[in-house]
């Protein structure tokens, strides 16, 4: 199909789709008049029922905990298939590569940024039930700490410092741990993923009951998943850039 023809077809199709979209969207409740009732119920009940002051995280890891488990496994599947796609056909061993960063300033700043990202990541995960944050957001920040290291130190030093083979076990432990916490509820005679611990004091680190474990498990799964994804992509890139041009 030629380019003008394709664009012409798109304009016709997009005009139709656009009209349907706008017609549908305009029938929604007007912006700023959220009618409820579910959001209001959760917002009023999360603190007395679950002792979680951050109601968004309460929905993610408690009220909708089962859905989040599916989402967790989705991320796991995506990371695993990325690794599978890239690893299967990699032709070059990445061990004999030399990275190019030689500036002390860049390396120092990279180490500093990594330390800050680690601390912020742990903080964001730990306070997930109190302030905006939680396992997903914190897991990404944790993974970025390793990205800073990867970008600023030599590849060989990085592999010595951060065993990338650990990324997959960490990811699997997180994803499996989430399911295990859910199953543990059965041992106490509750339903799947139902809270089996003391609820703690609202607004303190102890708040949240057994959802705390779920929170940390998803942090591990997200952090491990991201490490797998960018570990594989970066190794692929390095093999591409240095491995091939050196031959």
């Amino acid at each position, binding site marked *: *199909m030629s*380019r003008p023809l*394709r*664009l012409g077809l*798109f304009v016709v199709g*997009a005009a139709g*789709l*656009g009209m349907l*979209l*706008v017609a549908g*969207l*305009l029938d*929604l*409740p*007007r*912006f*700023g*008049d*959220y009618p*409820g009732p*579910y*959001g*209001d119920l*959760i*917002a*009023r009940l*999360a*603190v007395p029922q679950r002792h979680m*002051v*951050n*109601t*968004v*995280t309460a*929905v*993610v890891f408690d009220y*909708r905990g089962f*859905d*989040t488990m599916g*989402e967790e496994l*989705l*991320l796991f*599947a*995506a*990371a695993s*298939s*990325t690794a599978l*796609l*890239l690893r299967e*056909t990699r032709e070059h061993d990445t061990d004999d590569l030399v990275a190019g960063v030689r500036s002390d300033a860049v390396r120092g700043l990279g180490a500093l940024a990594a330390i800050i990202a680690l601390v912020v990541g742990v903080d964001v995960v730990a306070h997930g039930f*109190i*302030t*905006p944050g939680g396992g*997903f*957001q914190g897991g990404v920040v944790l993974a970025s700490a390793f990205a800073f290291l990867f970008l600023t130190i030599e590849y060989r030093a990085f592999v010595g410092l951060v065993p990338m083979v650990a990324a997959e076990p960490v990811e699997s432990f997180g994803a499996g741990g989430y399911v295990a916490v859910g199953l543990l509820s059965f041992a106490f005679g509750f339903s799947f993923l139902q809270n089996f611990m003391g609820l703690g004091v609202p*607004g303190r680190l102890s708040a949240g009951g057994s959802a705390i474990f779920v929170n940390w498990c998803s942090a591990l799964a*997200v952090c491990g998943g991201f490490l797998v*994804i960018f570990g*594989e*992509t970066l190794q*692929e890139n390095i093999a591409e850039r240095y491995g091939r041009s050196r031959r």
Partner: protein
Amino acid sequence: MSVLPYLLVAWIFLFGLYGIVSSRNLIHITVCVSVCQSATYVLLLAIGYRKQGTAPVFADVPSSRRVVDPVVQSLTLTDIVVAVAISALLLSLALKVHDHYGSLDPSQVSEMKG
């Protein structure tokens, strides 16, 4: 104007779709898919918004305070995770296509011509 956020949703989505259709680069297409998905974030957050509502985090606001809907916010969080997973997969597929055909332009790749 109370319909503006909804019109923005339609605009972002169609703009991303235009990018996908007209693109000459697989990485550009991946970014356009992300643009399409961000339309859903705006839609979800716009549905749950309430005038004078604050964030549904009661760490330092009284429980009587008017808040926006926390359910759509957690759905948006889910959405972002899915978007990241899709981008990662699409990008690794793009890498493979480049390995195999030496080009990222879909019209240069015989199997994707159309």
